[in-house]
């Protein structure tokens, strides 16, 4: 069963950046969206600094897909927080936005996370697994579960301190399990180690696993869940040109050899809807 999703305002719109600050290795910035509906965790927006970007050598040219990490609706519209990991020209330009700047956005787009009961009738809890910049939709979803009174436990993994951020700001008020691959904080190793321990425990029966992070992590989670008979939802990434089903560029292989369009059939998918969460790595 798919959760309802709000209709996105038709077209793109200009918004104001109301805050931007560094958080660990990431940049967190906030927009005020006066026109949009409240998005549902797992959804994303297509963002650009300007209708044509302030581009270097003609790139960035297309808008970039970014998940929201927090939304609040108030008198002057929806306030949206994004967490950015700078990996190329698009994310670098977005990270350069400062208070008072404008940002162009379309969305919210995509299929959001389902609450546990929608994934598996009668399920009584959620295990959230975020890796790296994948913590963004996990943060939004965790908050939603709290509001809905659904018990959840959160596990977050990072490569090292330079590749981490947002923990205190977005998860600080709650106990989270942390794993750092370089051992600088929390468990010394992978976040999937923590998940394995948790799944091996006897109090997880019926819990649904939700994950977002790098392809390797998602595929590991997918396989662990499949083996353990645990339902899971994964928020995937893929290159996206449009975000609203127009370009067919965001293909992700399905078990039957065909492809789903991640921007409309995802970005959140059930583990059994795809043939792999890391297809590039097994090519």
């Amino acid at each position, binding site marked *: 069963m798919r959760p309802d999703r709000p*209709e*996105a*305002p*038709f*077209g*793109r719109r200009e918004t104001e950046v109301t805050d931007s600050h560094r958080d660990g290795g990431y940049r967190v910035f906030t927009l005020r969206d006066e026109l949009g509906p409240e998005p549902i965790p797992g959804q994303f927006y297509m963002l*650009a600094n300007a*209708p*044509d970007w302030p*581009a270097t*050598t*003609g*790139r*960035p*040219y*297309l*808008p970039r897909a970014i998940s929201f990490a927090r939304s609040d609706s108030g008198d002057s519209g929806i306030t949206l927080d994004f967490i950015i990991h700078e990996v190329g020209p698009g994310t670098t330009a977005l990270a350069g936005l400062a208070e008072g700047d404008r940002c162009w956005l*379309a969305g919210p*787009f995509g299929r959001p996370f389902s609450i546990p009961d929608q994934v598996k009738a009668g399920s009584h809890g959620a295990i959230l697994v975020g890796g790296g910049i994948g913590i963004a939709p996990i943060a939004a979803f965790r908050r939603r579960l709290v509001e809905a009174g659904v018990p959840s436990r959160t596990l977050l993994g990072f490569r090292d301190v330079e590749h981490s951020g947002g923990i205190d700001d977005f998860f600080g008020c709650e106990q989270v399990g942390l794993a750092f691959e370089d051992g600088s904080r929390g468990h010394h190793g992978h976040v999937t180690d923590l998940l394995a321990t948790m799944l091996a425990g006897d109090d997880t029966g019926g819990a649904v696993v939700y994950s977002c992070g790098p392809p390797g992590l998602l595929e590991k989670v997918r396989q662990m869940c499949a083996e353990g008979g645990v339902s899971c939802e994964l928020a995937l990434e*893929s*290159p*996206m*040109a*449009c975000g*609203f*089903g*127009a*370009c*067919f*560029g*965001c*293909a*992700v*292989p399905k078990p039957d*050899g*065909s*492809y789903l369009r991640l921007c*409309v059939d995802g970005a959140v998918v059930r583990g059994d809807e795809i043939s792999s969460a890391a*297809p*590039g790595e097994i090519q």
Partner: protein
Amino acid sequence: MSRLRTSLCGIELESPVLNGSGTYDALVARDVFGDPFIRQFPFAAFVSKTITLAPRVGNPPNRLWETPSGMINSIGLPNPGLDTFLERDLPRLSELPVPLVVSVMADSGEDFARLVSEVADSGRASAIELNVSCPNVHSGLIVGEQPTETEALMGILRPLTKIPLIVKLTPNVAAPEEVARAAEAGGADGISMINTLKAWAADPESGRSWLGAGTGGLSGPAVRPVALAQVRQVSSAVAIPVIGMGGITDGESAFEFIAAGATAVAVGTENFRDPAAGGRISAELERILESRELDSVEQARRSTLT
């Protein structure tokens, strides 16, 4: 918007702005954006993605690569195949508030014939666009690269229907005007151009092909100067109308295509950056005509021809 009213192959349009085939999924957009999408429908006619006889899943990822002022795609024409299209999609597409153009492609004259006659017989398409950027399974030649193949194909298809047949040209040729002349000689009602330019990108890590299909097609503002040259060359070689496209992003670039001889224009890649680009471009174009005291697109087109 009366200044924008355009007659294209006998179809009366509110504006000369269409979409490029394969760059908009109106049925999904209707779900994503809701009623405002229908009320502010961005195009004066809707061109479907290219339909083939059998269903196609499309190419393996990666399918996209961003380039300076453009992008490469190797989507591979995913589509549900003719039967499902006719049953499931066509009825819904014909409910859109604008005339419908159905794009079809096949690798033989026989398959093309089935596509054209069944789409025409449905009575739901105002025109059919023939995507000829594909090899003919018999000759091995890409139809749209060969005037003779194009004219032969038109010889098969023209007798099948009276609704307008528009031939979509590939730009990867030395002389597009020769293919256009052959299409016209074979009875085509219009020419649509340009399709994407053959392009390649290296995987930044391995140095091998980034795209799952090896090569892909370049589109966006980067190709606009090439598209303009070809539209100009073709529109001065044939009497049938040309639908110009390739990197249109705003009213000004749409006007450039009209100055080059196009009767109508189509928006492709810009839709990805701005889902409402079609309507914006129509409005911008109207303001340009107004400020130049031109009463119609046709007048604009004629005013720049020497």
